[in-house]
């Protein structure tokens, strides 16, 4: 197997993948599921059930008629007891459907699947993926059906299955690869059929070589010579879309553009497995593999969890906590989001839930020391930015300078904060700057549009006045 990597920057934090060897264990469906109505990037869904309705597993409970969207399905059977605002992993409160479980595990009957890949059309496949609510399961939650429908003028050459899983602690993708290699290749074939891509590449970090061997065996067994399994160096953020494309294809995605500019689509292996299940088995995205790990949880491991299961349920079902829970992280420790409550529930994008005690707080002290210009953040930035200068500019509110320093190209991987010996909040400030710039740009566009409108209106008025005057002159003359 060939081995690749990206060159600029990157770090190798302690892996801590202690749940590596524990296979997926299904968690008992919760007594009450709290299912957020919108779990994707794009237009928010509206509820299509009412309080008091009885729902079955796989029934659509939220959808919207928009291109960039993905429906949400009921993940347990039972009665809808409320539709109200509940905490969401992104830190906000979103409308959620609360379903009381009747423990009958009834499924809806009209789930569509396809007979074979050869006999189905591209449109059928995309519709199937869209109807099953598939989104990117690596954490970005971009609707997969949208990702697979690029503009007509773009040619997709290669689909990269992302099995890098460079975040410490997380082992979800690894377990998916070890337990469902067949389904990953199936999913890859579906995507290749839809996009007419000629090649498929499965990229896996060198610390998961056994998974790579397993997948390669599967590819060889089925005689698929257009799919290649490659190794990438164990280095964070190897699993970042931009880094993976650079490593495997030796191409760079142009700034502020999507990977399809270089003819590539990167898809998480968990998503590929979900696509395979949706297309061939008709199963909507109602559950997912989640790594439960960290120092404060009694039984770390990989669990198959219904979407809508709250963290409270998970703690109870996995045997409780070992010590005082001080930090709850959805996602990995480098890019994950710290939660303010344990009432938050598992969504389509939850790849891992990490439970930590006091020791992690000591790692991220709130008081910063002075920057000593050691330039570690510059040396290790995988994009080639200068986080310390962006940070300085942000602190003196010089947004224009942060823009010249390419703050908008930041991928928010967290490497700069990670390596900083003064423990400065570099990632946070670069992210702040980036968001402010993007917001300003939006305002600028809206302003331009408004000016255009006013200009057009004024011109129209002037025209009318002139016409009136002409008419008047005619009458007078």
């Amino acid at each position, binding site marked *: 197997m060939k081995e690749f990597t990206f060159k*600029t920057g990157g*770090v190798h*934090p*302690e892996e801590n993948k202690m749940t590596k060897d524990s296979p997926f264990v299904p968690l008992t469906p919760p007594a009450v599921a709290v299912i957020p109505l919108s779990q994707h990037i794009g237009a928010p869904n509206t509820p299509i059930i009412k309080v008091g309705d009885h729902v079955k597993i796989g029934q659509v409970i939220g959808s919207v008629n928009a291109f960039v969207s993905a429906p949400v399905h009921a993940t347990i059977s039972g009665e809808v007891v409320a539709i109200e605002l509940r905490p969401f992993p992104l830190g906000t409160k979103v409308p959620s459907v609360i379903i009381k479980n009747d423990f009958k595990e009834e499924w809806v009957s009209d789930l569509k699947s396809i007979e074979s890949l050869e006999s189905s059309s591209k449109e059928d496949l995309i519709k199937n993926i869209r109807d099953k609510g598939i989104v990117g399961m690596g954490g970005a939650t971009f609707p997969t059906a949208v990702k697979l429908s690029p503009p007509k003028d773009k040619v997709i050459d290669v689909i990269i299955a992302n099995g890098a899983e460079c975040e410490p602690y997380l082992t979800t993708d690894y377990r998916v690869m070890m337990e469902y290699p067949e389904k990953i290749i199936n999913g890859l074939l579906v995507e290749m059929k839809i996009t007419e891509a000629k090649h498929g590449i499965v990229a896996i970090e060198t610390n998961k070589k056994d998974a790579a061997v397993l997948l390669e065996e599967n590819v060889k067994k089925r005689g698929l010579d257009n799919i290649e399994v490659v190794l990438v160096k164990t280095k964070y953020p190897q699993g970042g879309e931009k880094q993976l494309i*650079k490593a495997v294809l030796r191409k*760079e*995605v*142009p*700034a*502020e*553009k999507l990977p399809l500019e270089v003819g590539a689509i990167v898809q998480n292996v968990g998503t590929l497995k979900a696509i395979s299940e949706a297309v061939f088995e008709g199963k909507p995205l109602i559950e997912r593999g989640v790594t439960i790990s960290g120092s404060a949880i009694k039984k770390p491991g990989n669990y198959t969890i219904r979407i809508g299961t709250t963290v409270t349920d998970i703690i109870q079902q996995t045997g*409780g*906590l070992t*010590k*005082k*829970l*001080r*930090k*709850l992280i959805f996602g990995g*420790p*480098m*890019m*994950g989001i*710290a*939660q*303010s409550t*344990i009432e938050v529930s598992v969504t389509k994008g939850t790849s891992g839930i990490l439970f*930590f005690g006091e020791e*992690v*707080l000591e*790692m*991220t002290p709130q008081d910063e*020391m*002075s*920057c*000593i*210009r*050691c*330039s*570690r953040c*510059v*040396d290790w930035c*995988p*994009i*080639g930015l*200068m986080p*310390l*200068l962006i940070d300085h500019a942000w602190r003196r509110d010089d947004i224009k*300078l942060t823009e*010249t*320093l*390419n703050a908008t*190209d930041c991928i928010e991987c*967290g*490497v700069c904060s*990670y*390596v900083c*010996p*003064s423990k400065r909040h570099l*990632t946070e400030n670069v992210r702040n700057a980036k968001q402010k710039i993007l917001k300003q740009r939006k305002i600028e566009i809206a302003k331009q549009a408004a000016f255009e409108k006013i200009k057009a209106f004024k011109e129209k008025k002037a025209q009318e006045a002139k016409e009136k005057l002409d008419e008047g002159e005619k009458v007078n003359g």
Partner: protein
Amino acid sequence: MDENLVDLVVTSSPHIRDKAKVPLIMRGVLIALMPATIAGLYFFGVGHTLGVIIVSILSAVVAEYLSCLIFRTKATVYDLSAAVTGLLLALTLPPSSPYWMVAVGAFVAIILGKWIFGGIGSNPFNPALVGRAFLMISWPTYMTIWVKPFTQSVFPPTNAITTATPLSIIKLRGFSELLAMFDGSRLIMYKSLFIGNVAGSIGETSVLLLLISGIALIAKKIIDWRIPAGFIGTVFVLSAVFNRDPIFSILSGGLFLGAFFMATDYSSSPIIVKGRLWYGISLGVLTVIFRQFGASPEGVMFSILIMNCFVPFFDKMLPRVYGYLAPKRRTNI
């Protein structure tokens, strides 16, 4: 579930951090300076030389502490940067320096070299070299008394035999005179210079130990190899151009101490990788020019202080950002 078991704190990602901390980096530098310090004590006698080192470090730490009080900031003594400055200053001083002068130098280094610019990370010049330059200009006599190795054995040093450094012998009397002191053999001369058995500042003579420490610091990723490599490499090549013995040129004077420990000072060196290489090369060019044409035999200190002024220029050699074909041109940084 027990409610007392949950008390969540929300912070921005990343939630884990590397072990590297400022005090740990400074401790690494202090450890790396130990071999050269011990060599200095070995060659120039433990008595007075040890006193110079202790006075320098203590004065620097006291100056740092006072500065924190005067400037009303959080105490930064524990980050060990003042201790590093103090030790570096001591290593650049003649072994026979009077204690009062060392103390003045350390205070100037910390206060004029560092704190008037805002403390750690804000100083445009290397603080230790600011202190040394101050002493060099104020008390040139004391700063040019050089002790012959192994003669300053008792305390106070009354029996020390003074001599000239190899570089000043060349400057004043020519290369053949110097060679004559080593029985006319270049090999013996190189060996003495490499081991450090020659007159010079406390910590600059033993090239061998400085090289080992420097490589250790590079391996630990505390300093970048580009500055010392560019610096020493340029001195080697350019000395040959000026018809000076290249091997002698890199082994003599404070070149290794300066290249590995002074020019690589974080706050007074470029943050850009490409800039660091050119910074090292410029230092080499300037050093050879000073040695060849200057009035003083040594050129490392003033080269570094002068090039420190040009660091913002080197910081404009921007790295290429992912997704752009060429580095963006910028004017207003």
